[in-house]
């Protein structure tokens, strides 16, 4: 397989300590490129202006500016295929489950989380992204070939009819 750029993950949590924990863990176990924000609003701004590609997004649920589900819904508009993971505390578990049904979450992770679980969920999410991207490419290729074929067909028809 061709060498791929490290996957880009966006992480949003208003608690610096959570960001720091996840960042440290992923730094020693993976090559993921992690973009972290304590403000979902700032993250959305950068998503519009700065961030060039995105493979997965993780967001806390309870944040002062904007809740995680609204944030993920915004991200979905720009990157519909990117898996969305919600990080939840206890009190909002019910909401998280509702969101999985309403907004279409890939997964939710409950705090306190297990690092191995977190890594597995991220890895599976990324695999899904890669597969979807490959599928998109293939579809494009097929469409291209199909278009070429129909062009040839038209040409043939034009010549013979």
């Amino acid at each position, binding site marked *: 397989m061709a060498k791929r750029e490290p996957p880009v993950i966006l992480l949003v949590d208003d*608690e610096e*300590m*959570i960001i*720091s*924990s*996840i960042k*440290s*863990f992923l730094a*020693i*176990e993976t090559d993921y490129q992690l973009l972290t924000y304590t403000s979902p609003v700032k993250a959305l701004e950068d998503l519009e202006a700065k961030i060039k590609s995105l493979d997965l997004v993780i967001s806390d649920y*309870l944040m002062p500016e904007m809740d995680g589900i609204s944030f993920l819904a915004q991200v979905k508009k720009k990157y519909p295929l990117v898996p969305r993971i919600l990080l939840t*505390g*206890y*009190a*909002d578990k*019910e909401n998280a489950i509702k969101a999985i049904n309403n907004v279409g979450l890939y997964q939710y992770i409950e*705090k*306190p*989380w*297990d*690092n191995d679980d*977190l890594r597995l969920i991220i890895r599976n999410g990324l695999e899904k992204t890669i597969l979807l991207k490959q599928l998109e490419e293939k579809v494009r290729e097929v469409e291209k070939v199909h278009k070429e074929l129909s062009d040839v067909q038209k040409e043939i028809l034009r010549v013979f009819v």
Partner: protein
Amino acid sequence: MLQTDRSPDALSLELSEILPIAMVKLDPKGKVLFMNRTCHELLAAMQITPEALSHVLPHSHRSLVRQALREKRVEEMNWVQNGRSLHLVFKASEVGGAAYLFMIDLTAQEEAKAQLMQSEKMASLGLLVAGLAHEINTPLGALHSNNDTIARSIEKIRQILEGERNLTTADRNRVQQLVDILRDVCQNTALATERLMSVVGSLKNFARVDEAEFKKADLHEGIESTLTIVQHQLKDRIRVEKQYGNIPLVECHPNRLNQVFMNLLVNAAQAIRGEGTITITTARKSDSVRISISDTGMGIPPENISKIFDPGFTTKGVGVGTGLGLSICYKIIEEHQGKIDVESGDHGTTFTITLPLGHGKKVKSG
């Protein structure tokens, strides 16, 4: 307008019959001279024949009556007879050597009040716990994850050092020692955070505020989380023996039943002076499950055994028991259409709860 064509005696008789207050007239020896209709109803509820009234007035209550006569105050008492308990407000008056007792039955009001207080307490406890659990989970999540990251890092450092050839034996040993210490510390922290996580988990499980309806639940899970909550009362003093049978899910209010388990476990722990054992047994009986909680404590004196489910009855003294614990347990089990029985002797006490598996919407009789 009162009819005036009656004799004063007939009038007072008529009044006494329609009075919604139980009234008894006793001679100085305690013999019943007269009682009105409300009083007959009250005695019927207690399954006492009018003739037996003076005999069944318990000794302590007789002195209460005397005191009421002396002080002319309104008194309150719990009257337990034939397994029924009444909360009465009464006043005594003396007229020409005979004593008149007036009693109002406030049992229903008292029970409703106790229930309301308890459910408000549980609701605010639930909210508090939910908030607390949420607040604890964020830093706990960070700690738990960080510790794991440190452990992984130590492992990686150890691997690098193993491949490193340019180290003296002394340095290698010293580094190895440090790595070992770090590893131990990490393991210890992992245990500590896991303990915290399980306590928070039990708290959440215990104070499930969200469930107002009957649902199928695993009683063993409820017992386990309750045990975690009361752990500090047991400490090393009391051994808990679990004889869990193979029981199915039971349709119940899980958090209400947890309240019952907690009450019984705390009582059992308090009944044991010094060291002892609490045995929790569960078993299935055709269409019900049976949960017993036994202690090796001092037992309940026979004269108290009929009163233990009464609201307000306590032997624990001010500040220890509210006296509401067992009466609420009784009420909760009644709501589940189950029953709670007690057996007590010198070697300890056993409470047995029997719960039907399915909760038929049976109309309560009585």
